[in-house]
C-alpha cells in the first residue's frame, strides 16, 4: 500500500494518490475521496449492474461488520473472502466495525468485547472473534477493533477507558498480522477515540501514531456525537499529532460543507453514508458543486448544472430541518433533511416534469422526472430508492471530483462559496 501526497501544505487540503491496495497491486484512488458504502457488499438498493453504470464509483468498498457478521460460517465455507462472496471479486475491501449508516445502541461494550447490531440482534465481538471474522472476510484494509461508544454525556473515566481499550485492540490486531498467516497482508487502520476530551484525543492520536498502522480513522466526529465548536478544534489538534504520510479517514461526515472543512484540515477519505441517508429520507442531493468558468461566483451560479434548482428547492416549505453550518444549533438527527437536498415526496413535485437536477448525467436524471419519483415515493415503490440512490451516489462522487479539482486549481474558496449558496 502506498500513499503519495502531491502537495505538502497543510492548508487548504491534501491531494494524494492511494495505491497498491492489498491484493490489488495495480489499483489506485485519488484523494480526497470516499469509500463505497455497502451492506453485505451490495450498495444499498443497487444491483452490481446498476452500480457499475454510475460514474466515478469508489475503488474501495466499505463493508460494515454488522451487515455480514452473521454469515461468518458461510464465508468460512466459501473460503474466498467477502469481495468474491458478494459478487465483486475485483473490488478493494475495507471493513469497519460499526455500521456508519445506522445508529449504534450505547452501553453494551465491556473490557473484552465490542457489541455490534446485526439483523438478528446484538453480537459481541471479542478481539479473537473479530480477528476470526476478518480471516474469513479477507479484506484489503480493516479498521482495527475499537470501542467508540462515548456519547456526548460520557464521563471522562468512560472516555479514557475507550481510548485504552481501543489501543489494546489495535495492538491485538497488529500482533495478529504476525501470528495469523491469513491476516499478514491486511492493512490495519488505527482508530482514534477520545470523544470531546482534548487530552484523551491527543493521547489516542499520539499512541496510535507510534504503531505501524496503514492509516488513521478519526472516530466519533460525526455531528450527533459532539458539540460543534469543540469538534473542529479537536479534529485540527488530532490531525496535527498524526504523521502526514498516511491517509486519514473520517467516517459518517458527508455534508458537503463539512467535507470541505475537514478536507481543509487535512482529511483524505470519507464514507458515502450521506447520499445513502438522503436516499433513505426520500431526498435527492441538489447542491451545486460545479465551477463552470472563472467568472465571479454570482455570475456563474445560475448556469451551473445543479444550481438552477438548488437554492429555492433546498429551502423547502415542508418544515424540513435546515442544518446549521457553523455551530449555532444542533440538528444532528440522521433523519433530518439538510439544505443540500430536495424532498421529492413533497406535494409541489407532483406535476414537476423536469429532471431532479437539470443537466445531471446520471441515469435517474437523464431518464426520469421529479413527478415520477414523487409518485414512486408516495406509492412506496422500490424503484424510488433505486433511482435516488443512483442520483445521490453520482452527485456525491462527482462532488469529490470537484473537490480534487478545486485543490489542484487553487479554487477551494470558490467551491466553498458555491456550496454555501444552498444555505
Amino acid at each position, binding site marked *: 500500500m502506498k500513499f503519495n501526497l502531491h502537495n505538502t501544505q497543510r492548508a487548504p487540503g491534501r491531494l494524494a494518490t492511494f495505491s497498491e491496495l492489498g491484493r490489488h497491486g495495480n489499483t489506485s484512488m485519488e484523494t480526497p475521496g470516499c469509500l463505497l458504502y455497502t*451492506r453485505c457488499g451490495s450498495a444499498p438498493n443497487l444491483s452490481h449492474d446498476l452500480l457499475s453504470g454510475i460514474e466515478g464509483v469508489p475503488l474501495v468498498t466499505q463493508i460494515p461488520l454488522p451487515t455480514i457478521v452473521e454469515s461468518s460460517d458461510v464465508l468460512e465455507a466459501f473460503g474466498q473472502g467477502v469481495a468474491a462472496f458478494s459478487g465483486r471479486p475485483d473490488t478493494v475491501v475495507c471493513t469497519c466495525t460499526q455500521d456508519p449508516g445506522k445508529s449504534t445502541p450505547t452501553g453494551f461494550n465491556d473490557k473484552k468485547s465490542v457489541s455490534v447490531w446485526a439483523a438478528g440482534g446484538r453480537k459481541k465481538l471479542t478481539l479473537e472473534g473479530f480477528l476470526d471474522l476478518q480471516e474469513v472476510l479477507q479484506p484489503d484494509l480493516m479498521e482495527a477493533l475499537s470501542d467508540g461508544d462515548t456519547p456526548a454525556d460520557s464521563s471522562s473515566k468512560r472516555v479514557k477507558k475507550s481510548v485504552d481499550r481501543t489501543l489494546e485492540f489495535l495492538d491485538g490486531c497488529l500482533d495478529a498480522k504476525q501470528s495469523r498467516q491469513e491476516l499478514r497482508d491486511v492493512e490495519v487502520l488505527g482508530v482514534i477515540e477520545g470523544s470531546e476530551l482534548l487530552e484523551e484525543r491527543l493521547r489516542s492520536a499520539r499512541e496510535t501514531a507510534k504503531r505501524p498502522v496503514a492509516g488513521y480513522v478519526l472516530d466519533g466526529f460525526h455531528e450527533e456525537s459532539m458539540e460543534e465548536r469543540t469538534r473542529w478544534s479537536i479534529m485540527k489538534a488530532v490531525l496535527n499529532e498524526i504523521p502526514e504520510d498516511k491517509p486519514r479517514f473520517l467516517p459518517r461526515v458527508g455534508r458537503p460543507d463539512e467535507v470541505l472543512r475537514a478536507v481543509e484540515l487535512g482529511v483524505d477519505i470519507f464514507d458515502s453514508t450521506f447520499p445513502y441517508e438522503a436516499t433513505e429520507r426520500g431526498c435527492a442531493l441538489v447542491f451545486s458543486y460545479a465551477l463552470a468558468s472563472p467568472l465571479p461566483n454570482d455570475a456563474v451560479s445560475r448556469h451551473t448544472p445543479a444550481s438552477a434548482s438548488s437554492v429555492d428547492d433546498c429551502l423547502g416549505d415542508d418544515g424540513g430541518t435546515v442544518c446549521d453550518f457553523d455551530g449555532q444549533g444542533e440538528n444532528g438527527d440522521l433523519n433530518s433533511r439538510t439544505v443540500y437536498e430536495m424532498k421529492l415526496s413533497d406535494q409541489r413535485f*407532483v406535476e414537476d416534469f423536469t429532471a431532479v437536477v437539470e443537466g445531471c448525467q446520471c*441515469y435517474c436524471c437523464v*431518464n426520469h422526472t421529479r413527478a415520477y419519483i414523487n*409518485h*414512486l415515493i*408516495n*406509492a412506496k*415503490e422500490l424503484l424510488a430508492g433505486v433511482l435516488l440512490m443512483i442520483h445521490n451516489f453520482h452527485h456525491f462522487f462527482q462532488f469529490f471530483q470537484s473537490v480534487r479539482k478545486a485543490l489542484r486549481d487553487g479554487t477551494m474558496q470558490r467551491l466553498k462559496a458555491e456550496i454555501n449558496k444552498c444555505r
Partner: protein
Amino acid sequence: MAAPMTKMPSALSLEILAECSTTKARTCKLELPHQTVDTPVFMPVGTQGTMKGLTTSQLEQLNCQLILGNTYHLGMRPGPELLEKAGGLHKFMNWKRALLTDSGGFQMVSLLELAEITEEGVKFQSPYTKEEMLLTPEKSVEIQANIGADIIMQLDDVVHSLTTGPRVEEAMYRSIRWLDRCIAAQKRPREQNLFAIIQGGLDTRLRTICAKEMVKRDTPGYAIGGLSGGEEKDYFWKMVTLSTDILPREKPRYCMGVGYAVDLVVCCALGVDMYDCVFPTRTARFGSALVKTGQLHLNQKQYAKDFRPIDENCDCSTCKQHTRAYLNTIAGRESVACQLISVHNLKFQMDLMRDIRQAIIDDRYPAFIKDYMKTVYPAGDYPTWLRDSLASVNVDLNS
C-alpha cells in the same frame, strides 16, 4: 342482443409466423403502436408504473416487450389527470415499448370489500379518500385513454371462478353489454386496441355464447377472463380450449392471470398468444427463485452454503454474479435481493417464452412439451388434467 354493424378499427396487426402441425400453438409478430411483440408473450405486471425495483433499461435488457399496468392503481395514484399531463404512462415512466392496461374492475372486486356491481358499473369506496366512486365502462375506457396503453381492456363483470348459478350468467351477459358501452366510449381506436373479455364461468354453454357474441363485435383482440381463480384445472383448460376454438385465427388471444410455467406451456398448445401474472415478481419478493423444476426458496437454510448460481444454465446478471448462498444472506434483509431475484425470475419467464416460440417455428413443439413435462415430473406422475389437456391437442405424454 344486437351485434354491431360496422367493422371495428384496430391499432394492431398480427402476422402468424408459424403454426404447430400437431397442437393449436402458433407464433406470431404482434405489431402494436409502441413495439412489435413476439408471441406467445408473457407480460410482467408493473402495477403502479414500475416493476419491482427494476429500471426500464433492465426490463429492456431482459427483452420484455409488453408490460402491464393496473388501471385501478394508476387511476388512484398518480391519477388519470396527471398521467394525461405527463403525456401518458409511457412518458411518465419512460417506457418506450408496449403497454397493456386492465380495466380496473378486477382489482375493485378482489381488493375492496365494499364494491357493489350494478348495471351502471362498479360502485366502490376510495381507500384513500373514503369517497364513494363509480367505475362505469365509459369511465374505465376514459381513464385507460389517459394512461395511453397500446392495449386496453373492456370493463367486465368479474365473478369468482368458483361461483355457480344465475350470477354467472348475469355477469356474462352484462360483460357483453359493457363491451358495447366500451366500444361506444372509445375515442382513440387507431391508437389503442380495445380487447373484449370472455366470461361465463366454468359453464361450456355460457362461455360459448359469450365468445360468439364477442367475436361478432370484432374487437382487435380477445381475452379469456374469469379463470385462474383457484378452479379445478380440469375446468380451466376446457374453458381455454373452447374459447380458442371459437376465436378468429387472425386476432390475438390473451389468457388473463396465467404465469406458472406448466400452464404457459399447456395454454400455448391450446392456442393462446398472451399471458400476464404477478407471480414471478411477487414470489421474488419472498425470496423465491424460479427454476424448471419449480422454485427455490432461497431464504431456507439449505441454501446458506450453496455456492452455485440459482441456475447454472441461466445467463441473467444475477446468475452470472451471485450464488444461492449470497442471496440467502441478503434475502429479506436488503431490498436489492428482491430485485436480483426478480431479474432472474423475469429472465426465466422470458427464456421460457423464447424457447416455446422457437419450438413452434421449428415445428417441434410436441417434443418440447414432452421434454418440459419430463423435467417437471421426472417420475412421470403427470396430473390428469395435464394428460387430458395435452391429449386434446394430440400430445400423448406417455408415448
